């Protein structure tokens, strides 16, 4: 897998995991929103999520989740795809637009204005939850009873 693919996986995943509305808001605030053609109008559907029997065994179908996807192309011909959990059409379209912008010469600007805040917010969100969980970790200690001799 190439670095370009890994980078694209990273930003698409980052946008998909962001809270509803956040990606579209960052795109608007960045002032980077370009004109575009719609290749695939935002569409709500489902993905069947799988698990593994015994966590490591064969796959089984667990449950569906709602997902919205969209595809756009910029004036320069660059194509962007957005796949985000939930039912936000503006969210999927914003993700597709940002995916396209990040493949153009404006990628540096988009990185600073959109990806960096998303990364920081996600890190903070995860850390806060992990810290609360860590505070509920049991510290076992042994009661010493009677005299030792």
């Amino acid at each position, binding site marked *: 897998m190439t670095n370009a693919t890994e980078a694209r996986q990273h930003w698409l995943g980052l946008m998909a995991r962001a809270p509803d509305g956040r990606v579209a808001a960052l795109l608007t605030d960045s002032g980077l929103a370009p004109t575009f053609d719609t290749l695939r109008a935002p569409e709500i559907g489902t993905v069947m999520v799988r698990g593994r029997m015994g966590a490591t065994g064969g796959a089984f179908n667990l449950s569906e989740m709602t997902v919205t996807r969209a595809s756009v192309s910029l004036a320069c011909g660059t194509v962007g795809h957005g796949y985000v959990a939930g039912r936000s059409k503006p969210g999927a379209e914003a993700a597709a637009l940002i995916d396209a912008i990040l493949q153009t010469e404006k990628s540096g600007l988009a990185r600073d204005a959109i990806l960096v805040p998303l990364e920081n917010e996600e890190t903070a969100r995860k850390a806060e939850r992990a*810290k609360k969980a860590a505070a509920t970790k049991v510290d076992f200690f042994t009661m010493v009873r009677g005299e030792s001799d």
Partner: protein
Amino acid sequence: MYVAVKGGERAIDNAHAWLAEERRGDTSVAELSVAQIREQLSLAVNRVMAEGSLYDPDLAALAIKQARGDLIEAIFLIRAYRTTLPRFGYSEPVDTTRMACDRRISATFKDLPGGQVLGPTFDYTHRLIDFALAAEGEVPDAPTRDTDPDASIPHVMEFLNSEGLIEEALPDPTEPPDLTREPLEIPAERALRLQSLARSDEGFTLGMAYSTQRGYGRNHAFVGELRIGTVAVELDIPELGFAIEIGEMTVTECETVNQFQGSKTEPPQFTRGYGLVVGQCERKAISVALVDRALRWEELGEENVGAPAQDSEFVLYHGDNIQATGFLEHIKLPHYVDFQSELELVRKLRREAGAMELPEAAE
């Protein structure tokens, strides 16, 4: 002859208008928002997502509002809605080893890497009504402790595995069956049973699991591990040519360790039951693991003692609360013609019986 009976339209419309009014309740009390239900009744939302078999907290919260808090009605709404959506594909199996755990406990090992993390649990509460909740007030922030949020927490089963004392769950590339595409057929393989149990009624599944503990197909379960947290969902995107994360979901996973004396085909070892349910649904995940283990009797060469929890047809065909309620509740709908024919049959039988008895009565 069939005679259609018309004339209920206005009564039905008026009944539904009154339903809407009753749903709203006393208008001097503030209306519930969907976000309030999602945030403050989150375990009800989780149950509706699990049994509705569609992960979407906002939609489940809306369904609960529409159903006036009747969770089976809300699950029905979710099941109906999901049939209207196109299916984009099947995800990669979620990797629960990489779960960001809110809770992770083991009843079998006290000291284990990652520790016993209680999370936001009802356990150890006193189950006394908290009248302070009836008044509005701020909730103090939960305490925190520094930790590495990226540290992965190994599954407890790996420790027993290293000694070879427990059956292994080996990867299998077989494409699993899908209950939402093919009707349920018996015998059902384990992958199909786990899908069916993941969406089965919590109360029914709990009852079946409890029956195994009380001796109907006893299999001595310990909770080897219970974990609740978020996992990433990965989907292969054909237009990209690679897989990406399309979001995260909260899941509850329970692995049981079960005493096993060995059978004709298997050596004495610990066997396993597995329950994976979407959302924070702890009681349900433990129940699924117990029932999963009971249903594995044949594969493990155990005796069928005729216990209900060993009967996959009984468990799987009666655990779906939407199928069950559909069939149960339909008997309250008009059966005038059916009943008319029954009535005439009974009258006829009585006439015939009466005709035979009459000569005696005359004596």
